[in-house]
């Protein structure tokens, strides 16, 4: 592990709840680790497993998918359907040999700025403990003029 | 090559013409082509794709390509800015058999954005050095809608000339359209140009080509005097990668221009 390695975490936040929750954390000046990069998605049900794998392939160390609490979905059932996908995907990735905690899920509502920061804190700690992700990662030195390939 | 100028051709903004100039004089001098040939244009990170050359060899110093926005490379070529550099491989393919046209009439039939290499051919034939080499030139050019016609200003200029007969048609007119309305094969039937001493050159979508052949047959054009430029998915452009063959012939290397006499004997893989 590189000496000053910092985990890179990609957070897919649903537009209606978790993204607003992150916003609230920001406007309320609640501190949380700067390791996340946020991608706003319309709904946690929008998450295609390809997104998660693509993130790991591109050098992300951990992925968080966050949506509205059950019953609060802006599209009524998006998060319920997403929950089934998330459950099977998570179990499947762990079965393959991806460490538990590499890919995580949460419900964060628009009012839960505190919970948002807490989730980010926990996820960051988990990923820091796991170290850099190795599975799926593509070596970037295969490209370009000064390649070592 | 460097993008010298770029402009959008059609109202649906799907076609853009790029004018490219060579990076140095030497390359420009070394590049010789005939109408109907194509080049592979390359953008790093996006890939390479084949495009017919829309300019005529008589228009020195630069090359023109009209690009239909469809896939990854073409979209990138639509977004590329003037002054940017792109890669080019070519000229590739055989081109139109211009030597055969000497002393003959030429009937040019084009449809849609496939008109690019035909524009090259017509511009070449109209050039003062070449115009006397062929007799009558007739051009039938159709597009789906008036807004989708390519090279509109040039078409107006051609219209004014008396050494060229131009018939422009659209599938659906609009309120401002004063010209012909009708599909190219039907217009061909209506215009009924004489096949005597005439070569026909067709380029257009596969469906247009399919329906134009029988009309030309009916006008008694012999198979050997009908030429068409075909389109196929290509990668290497030099007959290696395999995908563009029609029977034993490769569109990239033995074509893209074929006579109907050649095609008749082959599987209809086009």
């Amino acid at each position, binding site marked *: 592990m590189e000496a000053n390695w910092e985990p890179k975490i990609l957070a897919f936040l649903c537009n209606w709840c978790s993204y607003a929750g992150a916003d609230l954390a920001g406007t309320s000046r609640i501190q949380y680790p700067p390791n996340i990069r946020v991608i706003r998605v319309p709904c946690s049900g929008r998450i295609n497993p390809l997104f998660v794998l693509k993130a790991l*392939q591109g050098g992300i160390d951990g992925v968080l998918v966050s949506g509205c609490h059950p019953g609060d979905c802006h599209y009524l059932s998006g998060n319920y359907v997403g929950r089934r996908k998330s459950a099977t995907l998570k179990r499947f990735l762990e079965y393959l040999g991806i460490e538990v905690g590499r890919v995580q899920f949460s419900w964060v509502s628009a009012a839960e700025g505190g919970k948002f920061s807490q989730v980010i804190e926990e996820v960051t700690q988990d990923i820091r403990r796991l170290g850099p992700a190795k599975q799926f990662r593509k070596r970037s030195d295969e490209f370009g003029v000064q390649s070592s390939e | 090559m460097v993008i010298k100028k770029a402009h959008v051709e059609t109202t649906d903004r799907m076609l853009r013409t790029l004018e490219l100039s060579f990076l140095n004089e030497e390359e420009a001098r070394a590049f010789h082509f005939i109408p109907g040939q194509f080049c592979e244009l390359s953008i790093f990170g996006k890939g390479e794709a084949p495009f017919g050359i829309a300019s005529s060899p008589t228009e020195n110093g630069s090359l023109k390509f009209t690009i239909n926005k469809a896939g990854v490379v073409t979209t990138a070529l639509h977004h590329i800015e003037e002054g940017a550099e792109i890669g080019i491989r070519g000229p590739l393919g055989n081109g139109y058999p211009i030597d055969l046209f000497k002393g003959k009439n030429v009937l040019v039939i084009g449809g849609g954005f496939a008109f690019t290499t035909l524009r090259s051919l017509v511009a070449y034939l109209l050039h003062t050095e070449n115009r006397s080499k062929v007799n009558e030139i007739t051009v039938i050019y159709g597009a789906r809608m008036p807004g989708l016609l390519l090279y509109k200003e040039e078409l107006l200029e051609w219209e004014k000339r008396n050494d060229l007969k131009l018939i422009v048609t659209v599938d659906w007119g609009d309120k401002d359209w004063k010209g012909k309305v009708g599909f190219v094969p039907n217009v061909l039937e209506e215009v009924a140009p004489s096949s005597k001493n005439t070569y026909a050159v067709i380029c257009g979508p596969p469906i247009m080509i399919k329906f134009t052949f029988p009309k030309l047959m009916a006008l008694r054009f012999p198979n050997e005097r009908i030429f068409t430029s075909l389109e196929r998915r290509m990668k290497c452009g030099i007959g290696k990668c395999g995908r563009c063959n029609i029977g034993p012939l490769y569109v990239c290397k033995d074509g893209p221009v074929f006579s109907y006499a050649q095609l008749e004997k082959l599987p209809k893989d086009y």
Partner: protein
Amino acid sequence: MIQQKIREIARELLTKKEVDLIIGFGEGTLPLRTTPRFMRNAEKTDRLIWNSFCENNLAVYLPKFSRFKVGLVVKGCDARSAVALSLEKRFKADQLFLIGVPCQRMVDRRKVKRAVRGEILQAREEEGILYIKGDGFETKLNREDFLYSSCQVCIHRTPLQANVLVDDPVEEYPLTEIHPEISAFEKRSSEERWRFFEKETSRCIRCYACREACPMCYCAECFVDSSRPKWIEKGLNSSDLQFYHVVRAYHQTGRCSGCGACERACPMEIRLTYLTQKLNQEVKERFGFETGIDRDAPPPLATFEAEDKQEFIK
């Protein structure tokens, strides 16, 4: 006799014009193999055969013949694929006549090849014994010792969804353990599991035989072929190979009948069913769903229950 019965039914269906064609199995050109046959002529139905080598899942052809009335010879797994396909509206159920064969489970040709030295030139089966003749050898093998691993754990061998069964239902073996191979695999450490996956997928040559052999892989454009967006590259980079195999398997969640066609098709003998079987098990445990059993149950990932477990969500 199963084979005789299949021929009779096929002949009748064709003669009465109840179907346009029968898709069944015919004599293969290699020992231990059969080959899919497309039969339109009632006179020739005696070319249909049935034995322990009918390993293909013929439901793979259904989307291709969606404009015809098809009589399909099916095992338990194939029938369930057909049901799953009609559930996804790839095929109208009334266009399909399933000729169901209670499955005696299929013989793994690769296992047999490994058990002998030299090339097998002839194989014949009788009363559960495989008579193998090869270049300079001859041997007898017990059929039951050479079954496909996907067949060994099969618990729905009788195609109850079929329009007609050619034989009495077979006795299903309820497994004491859901899937011995999976539970053994799960006991290994995550590093070991990943290394196994890495090693298996490293042999992949991107021929997509696993995809094409699967009845459920019918997408007009597979994610590997999509250029906008381009999800993965088409070369042999290990990351891309892993990506492909994870997603190919995952796309089968709640849709896989566990027939094992993907693994059988692979020329590089990559273990693939340990992936799909795990997903099947997961879907069964979590959502109580099994592919192709209930004609009306929606695919599990296309639906939900408000009470679905969510122990993994923060």
